[in-house]
């Protein structure tokens, strides 16, 4: 069924690489922001909340454009990162990962925040009386109890990253082997005559990947529910 050409496999492999990197890099930030939103009250919290969810409601093209004018090779942040750390985003797969990570971030933060809110604070207090400092309490009590939600958030971000199109193509274009993900490859195939057959195969593959991500996420969400009903 998935009788893909090498060029199509390249697009699939690139999509997976971009999504894995986007999710892995976004995860520590997702946990930190989720924790801040779940546990802390601070001035401007509503604003932080809004900015985190912004990519969900902005047209992806706008997000892509904003990335372009800030992380492009000559743009302020992009030039700084390139000159000091050798990290280049523009027209590279790393730029696709950045765009995908930002687009998936809201979907990642939400379940993490809910899971952290659901952790019983009294258990953290108990751990503190038993000699655990704040970091140890977080690592041995809070994080494991919130783990199903954290995994669900990571899976949602991964799925969103796999399907990202608008922000990516605006920011890093559509270069085969570098920034041409599954979505971009489908789009390109549909622009040429007789491209519908190969596009159809990629479409099927995209559906399978998205469905698998959703099922995995659902499974973890159910496990989280079971766990919190105990004790």
């Amino acid at each position, binding site marked *: 069924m998935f009788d893909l050409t090498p060029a199509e496999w390249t697009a699939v492999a690139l999509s997976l690489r971009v999504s894995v990197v986007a999710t892995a890099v976004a995860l520590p930030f997702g946990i930190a922001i989720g924790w801040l939103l779940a546990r802390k009250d601070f001035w401007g919290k509503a604003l932080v909340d809004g900015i985190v969810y912004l990519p969900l409601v902005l047209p992806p093209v706008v997000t892509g454009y904003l990335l372009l004018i800030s992380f492009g090779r000559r743009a302020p942040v992009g030039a700084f990162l390139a000159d000091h750390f050798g990290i280049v985003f523009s027209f590279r797969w790393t730029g696709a990962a950045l765009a995908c990570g930002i687009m998936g971030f809201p979907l990642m933060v939400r379940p993490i925040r809910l899971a952290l809110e659901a952790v019983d604070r009294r*258990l953290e207090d108990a*751990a503190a*009386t038993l000699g655990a400092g704040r970091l140890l309490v977080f690592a041995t009590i809070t994080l494991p109890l919130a783990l199903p939600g954290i995994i669900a958030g990571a899976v949602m971000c991964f799925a969103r990253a796999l399907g990202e199109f608008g922000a990516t193509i605006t920011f890093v274009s559509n270069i085969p082997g570098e920034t041409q993900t599954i979505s971009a490859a489908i789009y390109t195939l549909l622009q040429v005559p007789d491209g519908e057959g190969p596009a159809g195969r990629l479409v099927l593959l995209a559906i399978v990947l998205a469905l698998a991500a959703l099922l995995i996420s659902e499974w973890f969400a159910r496990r989280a529910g079971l766990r919190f009903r105990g004790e």
Partner: protein
Amino acid sequence: MLAVDVEKKLGVFQVAARFQADGVTALFGPSGAGKTTVINMVAGLIKPDRGSIALDGTILFDAARGIDLRPNRRRIGYVFQEGRLFPHLSVRQNIDYGRWASGQPRNADEFARVVDMLDIRQLLDRRPRLLSGGERQRIAIGRALLLRPRLFLLDEPLASLDAAHKAEILPYLVRLRDEADVPMIYVSHDAAEVRRIATKVVRIDAGRVVASGGLDLLKESEA
């Protein structure tokens, strides 16, 4: 010797407690009198507005001097009313948590002694979720004991249990009292329970210490 002299305002409820405790001291009073608030301040889980708390010459809290030792540095074994076992850890990991988290070396003899004292050997590899209330409370006692605390706080450890389980746990508490050579604060509103466990009584009502002394203080409340 624990010396407490604290004030705390929680909304309209005002707690002002001043007492000294050694041996096994019962904090005795009706529900809602502020007993749990007082021992939470001793444990470091609630910060008093004013006053000081000292344990064997170590200052745990002193508002005037700006000292507020974090709960993990106080080394106080707290047995909570509802057990508060960690649901994601096995019983063995639960009772060993305090020893591990406070950076004390593993001591197989002591572990075995505590496990036998509380008769929980057959539970070690299970998860807390499926245990009875009495079993959980025994594990909570073992967990606090293996911390090698300088003070025990027991917050109505029998309150969440039915009569049969109460009778099951009480002997273990008596054993704990006799074997652990550290002072104990035993919070309760049940005079019969206090009589079995405590040697001194601090009576609390409406957030204030109204009397402190021997077990004879229980009589007026029973009359």
